[in-house]
C-alpha cells in the first residue's frame, strides 16, 4: 500500500503532467512518465537505506501535498524581501517553482550571458536541453530527484559563452508563500559555463510568511575547461518548510568552483552536492555552515569524485545544533583509479549546544589511486572552556561570549567569499540565528 505521500502524486499526476511546460514533446513526456512511475513504484526510502540512515521520512509519508501551484503566478510577494545586499545583477525569481517575470529583472544582460526560465527555453527550442534534462534517467536517482525529474517544469537556464567573464552576480530566488494547503513544488536548473568563462551565482531560498510546503530543486552545473564559478547559497526557508536540493557539478580541465552554503531554515532540509572533477587540474572548494535549532533537521551530503589527474578539492564545513535540532553531515571523497596527483581534504567540525540536540557526521574516503594526498577530519564537541574563560576575563558576559565564539566558529566557513558586502550580510544572517543573550541552554 503506497503511503499518503506517494498516493498524492500517483492520483493527480496525469492532468498535471499534461499541463506542464514542454508537454507534448514525445521524449520529454516519456521521460517524465517513466520517472513518475519509478517514484510511485519505489516510494520513499526508509532508514534501512544507508543514504537515509539519519534522516527518517516516516512523518513525511503520512502527509499529502498538492502537486504544483496553479496560483503561483499571482501570489502576493513582497518585493522588498527579494533584495540581497551586495547582489544587484540580473535576478530570476521563482514562486513555488514557477517563473515570475513581474518580480525578475532580466533586462540589459551583460554580453555572453544567456539567462532564461526553463519554461521559456522549452517552448522555444527544447532539443538542446534534452541531454541535460534526461541524463538522470541513466543514474540511480533517489525518490526526490525522480519526483523532480517528473514534475519540474520550470527553473533557471543559464549559459555563459566561452571567454565571457560576467562581473555582476546572477541572483536566483526560490520563494515560498503561504497557501491554503500544503504544496509540493519543483525546480530544475541548468547552468553551463563555456571555456574560460567566469560567473558568480547567488542562490537564495526564502519564504514570505510561514508555510509548510515541500520543495525539490535539482541543479546541473557544467564548467568547461578553465571556467570559474563562485556559487553562494543562502537557505532561509521558513521553519516549517521541507526542502530537498540536489546539485550535480561537473568540472573539466582546470575549471574551478568555489561553493559557499549557509543553511539556516527549513524543518527538514537535505542538500546533496555531487561533484565530478573530470578534467586534469580541476579544483573544487566547498565551504558551508548548517545551524539546526528548534526541531529542525538539516542534512548536507557531499559526494566529491576525483576522476582525473592533479585535481584538488577542499571542503570545510561547520555545524551547530541547538535546542532539539539535528545536524547530519556526510562528506565522501572518492579518488578513482588513475587520478594520481590528487589532493583532497575535508574538515567538518560541529558544536552541540543543547542536551537535546544531535549531530551525526560521517566523513568518507574511498581511494583507488596511490599518488594521492587525502585527509579528512571531523569533530563534535562544545566550546573550548579556555576561550570562554579568556573572553569572560575581558569582561564579556558568558552568554555573549558563547554567541561570539559560535559566530567565529561558523564564520570560518564564510570568510573567503569574494563579495565583501554579501559576506557581511551572510555574517549578519548568521548572527541573527544564534541564540540571543540569556537564551543559551
Amino acid at each position: 500500500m503506497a503511503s499518503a505521500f506517494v498516493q498524492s502524486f500517483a492520483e493527480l499526476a496525469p492532468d498535471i503532467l499534461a499541463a506542464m511546460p514542454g508537454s507534448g514533446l514525445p521524449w520529454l513526456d516519456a521521460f517524465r512518465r517513466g520517472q513518475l512511475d519509478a517514484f510511485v513504484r519505489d516510494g520513499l526510502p526508509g532508514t534501512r537505506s544507508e543514504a537515509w540512515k539519519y534522516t527518517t521520512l516516516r512523518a513525511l509519508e503520512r502527509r499529502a501535498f498538492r502537486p504544483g501551484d496553479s496560483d503561483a503566478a499571482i501570489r502576493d510577494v513582497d518585493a522588498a524581501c527579494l533584495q540581497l545586499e551586495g547582489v544587484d545583477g540580473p535576478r530570476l525569481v521563482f514562486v513555488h517553482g514557477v517563473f515570475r517575470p513581474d518580480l525578475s529583472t532580466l533586462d540589459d544582460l551583460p554580453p555572453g550571458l544567456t539567462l532564461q526560465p526553463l519554461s521559456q527555453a522549452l517552448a522555444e527550442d527544447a532539443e538542446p536541453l534534452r541531454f541535460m534534462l534526461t541524463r538522470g534517467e541513466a543514474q540511480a536517482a533517489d525518490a526526490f530527484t525522480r519526483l523532480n525529474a517528473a514534475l519540474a517544469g520550470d527553473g533557471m537556464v543559464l549559459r555563459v559563452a566561452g571567454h565571457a567573464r560576467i562581473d555582476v552576480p546572477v541572483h536566483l530566488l526560490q520563494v515560498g508563500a503561504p497557501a491554503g494547503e500544503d504544496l509540493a513544488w519543483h525546480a530544475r536548473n541548468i547552468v553551463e559555463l563555456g571555456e574560460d568563462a567566469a560567473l558568480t551565482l547567488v542562490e537564495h531560498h526564502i519564504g514570505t510568511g510561514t508555510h509548510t510546503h515541500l520543495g525539490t530543486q535539482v541543479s546541473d552545473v557544467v564548467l568547461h575547461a578553465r571556467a570559474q564559478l563562485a556559487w553562494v547559497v543562502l537557505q532561509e526557508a521558513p521553519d516549517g518548510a521541507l526542502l530537498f536540493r540536489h546539485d550535480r557539478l561537473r568540472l573539466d580541465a582546470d575549471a574551478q568552483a568555489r561553493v559557499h552554503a549557509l543553511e539556516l531554515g527549513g524543518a527538514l532540509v537535505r542538500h546533496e552536492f555531487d561533484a565530478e572533477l573530470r578534467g586534469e587540474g580541476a579544483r573544487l572548494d566547498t565551504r558551508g555552515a548548517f545551524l539546526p535549532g528548534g526541531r529542525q533537521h538539516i542534512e548536507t551530503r557531499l559526494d566529491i569524485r576525483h576522476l582525473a589527474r592533479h585535481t584538488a578539492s577542499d571542503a570545510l564545513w561547520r555545524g551547530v545544533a541547538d535546542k532539539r535540532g539535528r545536524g547530519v553531515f556526510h562528506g565522501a571523497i572518492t579518488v578513482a583509479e588513475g587520478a594520481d596527483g590528487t589532493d583532497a581534504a575535508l574538515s567538518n567540525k560541529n558544536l552541540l549546544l543543547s542536551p537535546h540536540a544531535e549531530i551525526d557526521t560521517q566523513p568518507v574516503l574511498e581511494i583507488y589511486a596511490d599518488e594521492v594526498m587525502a585527509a579528512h577530519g571531523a569533530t563534535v564537541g562544545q566550546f573550548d572552556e579556555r576561550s570562554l574563560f579568556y573572553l569572560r576575563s575581558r569582561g564579556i558576559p558568558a552568554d555573549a561570549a558563547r554567541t561570539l565564539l559560535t559566530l567565529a566558529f561558523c564564520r570560518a566557513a564564510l570568510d573567503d567569499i569574494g563579495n565583501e558586502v554579501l559576506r557581511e550580510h551572510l555574517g549578519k544572517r548568521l548572527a541573527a540565528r544564534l541564540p540571543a543573550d540569556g537564551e543559551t541552554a
Partner: protein
Amino acid sequence: MSTETHEPVSRLTDRNPEVVRALSRRYGAGFITDIETDSLPAGLNEDIIRALSALKEEPEWMTEWRLAAYRHWLTMPMPHWAKLKIAPIDFQAISYYAAPKNRPKSLDEVDPKLIETYDKLGVPLHERARLAGVAVDAVFDSVSVGTTFRKELAEAGVIFCSMSEAIREHPELVRNYLGSVVPAGDNFFAALNSAVFSDGSFVFIPKGVRCPMELSTYFRINAGHTGQFERTLIIAEDGASVSYLEGCTAPMRDENQLHAAVVELVALEKASIKYSTVQNWYPGDENGVGGIYNFVTKRGDCRGDDSKISWTQVETGSAITWKYPSCVLRGDRSVGEFYSVALTHNMQQADTGTKMIHVGRGTRSKIVSKGISAGRSSNAYRGLVKVEKGAEDARNHTQCDSLLIGKKCGAHTFPYMEVKNPSAIVEHEATTSKISDDQLFYCRARGLDQENAVSMIVDGFCKQVFRELPMEFAVEAKKLLEVSLEGAVG
C-alpha cells in the same frame, strides 16, 4: 626512481632468484597435518545441531539455546552492506564439526603430530616449551586439544579452559554470561555461531585477581570442507585483570573456508581486559583463489564503573576480514581502546574497524587504525562512535591512517559519529597516502635495499599499534608484516 618503484613483480621475479624464493615462502603456516579426524557430515539442520550438542555431552539448556539461535538464523538474510565482494557461501556444504580422533585426557596424551603442528607454528604446547610463560589453549579445527598451566592458574583462582569443558564444569557461569554481550540473534554470523559453535576458550578471573600470566588461544583450521566456529568468553570480576592473546593459521587450500567466531568480554567494576589478536589465516593465492573468510563478532562490555577493555589486532591473513571489535562503555569512567593494523595484499579484502558506544558518564575511548593495502587488495576502515544522551563528558579520539602500496589497490575510510550529548568531545582524523619517493630515496641512499626500506617505513607506520602488543606478539606481528608484504614493491 619512480619507474623502479612500480616495476611489475613478474618481471622482477624472472631475473631475481632471491625474490622468487621470498615469494614462495610467503605463507609459512600453509601445511596440512595428516591426522585422523571425526567429523559430522556436511549440512546444517536441527538434527546436526542436536548431534553436535550430543557429541559434546552438553546439557539440555545448551542444546535448546543452540536450536533457538538456529531458528532465528533461518529468518535472517545474509548481510551485504560491507565493501566486500563475497562469493556465495553454501552453508549446507560445510561440515560443522571436525576433531582429531584420539581425544587426549591430558596434555601428555596429546597426539605427537599435534604437538609437532603447534611446534612448527611456534606455539609452546609441550612441557619443554613452557618456559615461555604463556598459558595456551590450542584449538584444532572444532575442539580444544590442550590447555597448559591449568594447575598454576587454578591456584590463583583463574579458570582457563575450553568452552566445552566450561559448559560441563561451570554451567552456572556460562549460563549467566553466554550471549549477554553478543546475543544469539545479534547478527547473521553471530546467530550461526550460536547455533553451531564447537569450542573456544573460557576465562574467568575472580574478584581482585590479577591473572599471573598471559593467556592465549591458538586457533588452527586443518580439515578441509569445514568451518571453524569458536566462541570465546572472558569474564573479569571486580578489580580483576587479564591479558589474552589469540593467534590463528590455516593450511593453503583452493576452497574458501569460513571462520565465524564470537568473542564476548565482560569487565565488571575496576576490571581490565586486554585482548590481542594476531590473525594470520591463509589469505588465498595471488589470484584470490582460496583463503579463509574471517567473519567475526567481537564485543566487550565495560559493565562496571572504572573498567577497561582494550582490543589490539594485527590482521595480515584471511581472504576476507570482516569484523569490528567493539566496546560498550556502560560503567561510569570506563575506557575502551582499539588498536589495529590491517594489511591486505594480492586479492585480499578487509572491512574492519570498531564501535565505541558511550553510555556511562566520563567514558573515554581511543581508536588507532592503520590500514596498509598492496597488490589488488581492498582495505576499509569502518567505525562507529556513538555518544548516548546520558554519557556526560564522554571523550573519543580516532586516528585512521591508510598507506597505499601499488596502483591497483583501494583504501577506504567510513567513520560514523553520532553524538547526543553536548558535553562530549569526539574527534576523528584520517589520512591516506603512499610511501613517498622521498622517504624511499632517503632510506636507499643510506644503503637499504628497496624491500628493507619499505619494511622499515611500514614498521614505523604501525609502531603505535605494535607498542600495544605483548612483546612476543609484537615480534611475530612485525615478522608477519614483512613476509606479507614481500613482492608488494618491486
